């Protein structure tokens, strides 16, 4: 059975093409691009909410996109136990919809951050199965609001339910930071309780091809397919 997937495009999405290429190249299966005003979603294994500045990030990052027509279908898709991945702005949208806990606030230094970061997996789930414990992945980030925040009660729930998928860490060499954006407990990505929905700030779709600086972004799709 071939792996089917889809990418949602909102006005202002700018990583939709990157996500489409990522899926086409790594899944070799059918990939759909869905406009935000659509009211139906094909039956697929994985939906990606891509990065960018949906609706200009006006009001609050992801807030307006979370009210788009297609979102009802996205929620149904998730409730159907199928995979949903929000990358960067997609992660922000998922917290705005309420599919994921917490919120993404402005980076600790109050500046946009576009650079390579290092992450490792915290708790095992279907998105990071093929990544070894303590394996350090190099993946770019590009965000202004990537500082994950939640209250203590929620944080304990996330830990107890093993919903923390990725955390920022130091790289192999000097001059790399432990926690680039000030996220609580260096959280880089979380899942929902059922672990079929993942939101992450780093961009795996910019780190998979041979010419990219790193190919570590492959692991996520490889984990899902295996």
């Amino acid at each position, binding site marked *: 059975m071939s792996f089917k997937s889809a990418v949602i495009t909102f*006005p*202002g999405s*700018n*990583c939709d*093409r*990157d996500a489409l*290429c*990522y899926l086409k190249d790594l899944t070799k299966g059918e990939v759909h691009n869905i406009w935000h005003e659509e009211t139906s979603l094909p039956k697929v294994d994985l939906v990606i909410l891509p*990065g*960018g*500045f949906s*609706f*200009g*990030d*006006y009001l609050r990052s992801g807030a307006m996109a979370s009210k788009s027509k297609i979102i009802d279908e996205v929620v149904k898709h998730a409730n159907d136990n199928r995979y949903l991945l929000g990358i960067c702005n997609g992660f922000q949208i998922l917290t705005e919809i309420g599919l994921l806990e917490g919120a993404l606030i402005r980076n600790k230094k109050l*500046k*946009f*951050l*576009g*650079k390579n970061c290092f992450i490792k997996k915290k708790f095992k789930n279907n998105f990071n199965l093929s990544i070894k414990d303590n394996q350090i992945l190099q993946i*770019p980030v*590009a965000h*202004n609001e990537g500082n994950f925040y939640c209250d203590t009660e929620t944080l304990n729930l996330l830990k107890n339910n093993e919903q923390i998928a990725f955390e920022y860490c130091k790289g*192999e*060499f*000097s*001059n790399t930071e432990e926690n680039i954006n000030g996220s609580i407990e260096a959280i880089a990505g979380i899942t929902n309780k059922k672990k079929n929905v993942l939101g992450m700030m780093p*961009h795996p*779709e*910019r780190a998979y*091809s041979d*010419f*990219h600086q790193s190919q570590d972004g492959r692991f996520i799709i490889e984990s899902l397919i295996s």
Partner: protein
Amino acid sequence: MNEELILQHGLTLDEFQVIRKYLNRDLSIEELGIFSAMWNEHCCYKTSKKWLKKLPTDNEIVIQGPGENAGVIDLQDNDGIAFKIESHNHPSYIEPFNGSATGVGGILRDIFTMGARPIATLDSIRFGLIETEKTKYLLNGVVHGIGHYGNCIGIPNIGGECEFESTYDFNNLVNAMAVGHVQKDKIFYSKPKSIGGLIVYIGSKTGKDGIHGASMASDVFSEEDEDEKRPSVQVGDPFMEKLLMEGCLELMSSGLIESMQDMGAAGITSSSVEMASKGNVGVYINLDKVPLRQPLSAYEILLSESQERMLAVIDKKNNHKVREILQKWQIDYEVIGEITDTKRVVFESNNRKVVDLPVEIIVDDAPEYDREFYIPRKRKNKDFDFSKIKLEDMIINLLTNLNYLDKSWVFDQYDSTVMGDTIREPGQSSGIVKIHGTQKVIGASTDCNPLYIRINPYEGMKYTVAESYRNLIACNINPLAITNNLNFASPLDPNIMGELVLSIHGLKTAAVKFNTPIVSGNVSLYNQTNEIPIKPTPVIGMVGSNMDLNKINTNKFCEIGNKILILGKQLTKNCSPYLLQDQKIAFNICEFNDLEVLDLDFEKKIANCVLELSDLKCIISCNDISRGGIFSALLKMQYKDMGFRVKVPDPIDLFCEYSAGYVIEIRSKDFEEVTSFLTKKGAEYHEIGEIIKEGIEINSKKFDYFDIMNKYRNDFEKIIS
């Protein structure tokens, strides 16, 4: 018409008389506004035209030279590359965030107006000394603005330069460059095709922002002006631009429009007049149809520089389809006029013709000046005293000078990997992106050596072009063409005019030799405040390619134990301007010796050696040698805690500048092959050392690697915050 009003519009009384005589009637205030917008330096190049005409603008790969929204070169297989650089200096001083943001927005529109999808941006920014009160505010604002706009629209920023010098204390420079990819058979031009075509307005509503922006950009500043001129700075909305870009590219690829013109400087006036002029036709526009943000007079509509607006010509039959596509992107769209056969520009408002002018008088009769200029005096040669200079101090001088420190603080605020095709990010000698879906790569670099050009404008400009050239060569990118941004002070000063004339001449000499024609550009004059002129700063943006991404060199060290070789010719220490300036040996511009003549044939010879050795996979990493000499080049090459051990006859040699200078890393096993190749080519080389782990060692003296690297990487942020 009273004189004061004419002068307020930036026209001289002589210029006004020319118009008056031609028309043989009085002008309406709207017409005066049009001449103000079209006859200023920014739009008609009245000072520089005579000299710009001398530049080489064509060769076998040029598809479109200067004169359109951007130049386009041919990259085989129906791939074209559109690129251009443009300044937003004055607005960025008055309002750094919006000034620089709209600079990026404007240059991106220039690119997609040609039917090209932007694939990279670069920026060349210059500020005053960090000790100057306003510099931190300007730096923060400009970097934030560039980042905000480019990040949101989603075009990777792949490089540029950022320098600090007292000459820019009251005139910071912001030059933004953009590169786009276009299919050769789908290039769009501003020339309309048919009489009767509908003129349509696409994009944001028109507001009061930026009224008189273009004439402001052609004016000398005094400090008190600043607050008064703030309303002339446009406000950008990158989200709108993203929608506009996607909407326009969709219209173009569906073949629904005939031609397109960005409403940039001088807004609807400039875009419609240029449309008429290019097509040798007339335009009729009803200003009542223009979508407005607030009630505006005809005069204000004509001169507004509100951002994210386009003017296009479509066939009547496509009106409905165009509207449908733009509705999907939630973009305002209105038919506002049509192409006529009158060769006149007619604007109507409230059933009254407020403007009715022949295109000829606005465009063809625009003034062109042959301004007086002086050639700088010959410099006397003198020997400087280097006896007191210690190696430790030289290193400290570099590590306490912002110009030498790692600029991650700047480019980490830019998204450089969006679009997923970035090969080399900022911080390397040139930025490189892949053309989507191919193996081809485009490299680009921006450069200027204002100190060199002040010393000797002609030779200095040759060095500037050569530096850009080397930046590309170091990555194994074949240099192809140039865009330029000539930033100067007031050309009414014959000394400054002399620098302008001679540097254009130097640009011509180098561009002809390297076969890199100038395909687009921009001139920014009057960069002076309180009568303090900036140093001549003609910035070069050079673009090149390699058909195979696997052949690209890195600028970063790859392996411990590999050998370090130097190619090129060292400038003597008495003739290394940046050495003298930055090591605090020469202070005043009159003290410097003249530049050594740059041998462009030698540049080409060494460059060809680097390209050939790279193709043979003998070069493991390579960097060019520029300001700060070999030492600075080596610092930039450090990576993954690898350092270097070198031996040189005199430590000062490590800080001298070079012609055709490159640092190359090679494997020991390739040493024979590389050196015999170089000998055969007659290219001198010096083996100076090797790559070591976590160390910096010069002539057996060990330095604290982590201390130096920590300063190099992190002190920029400390100094500027």
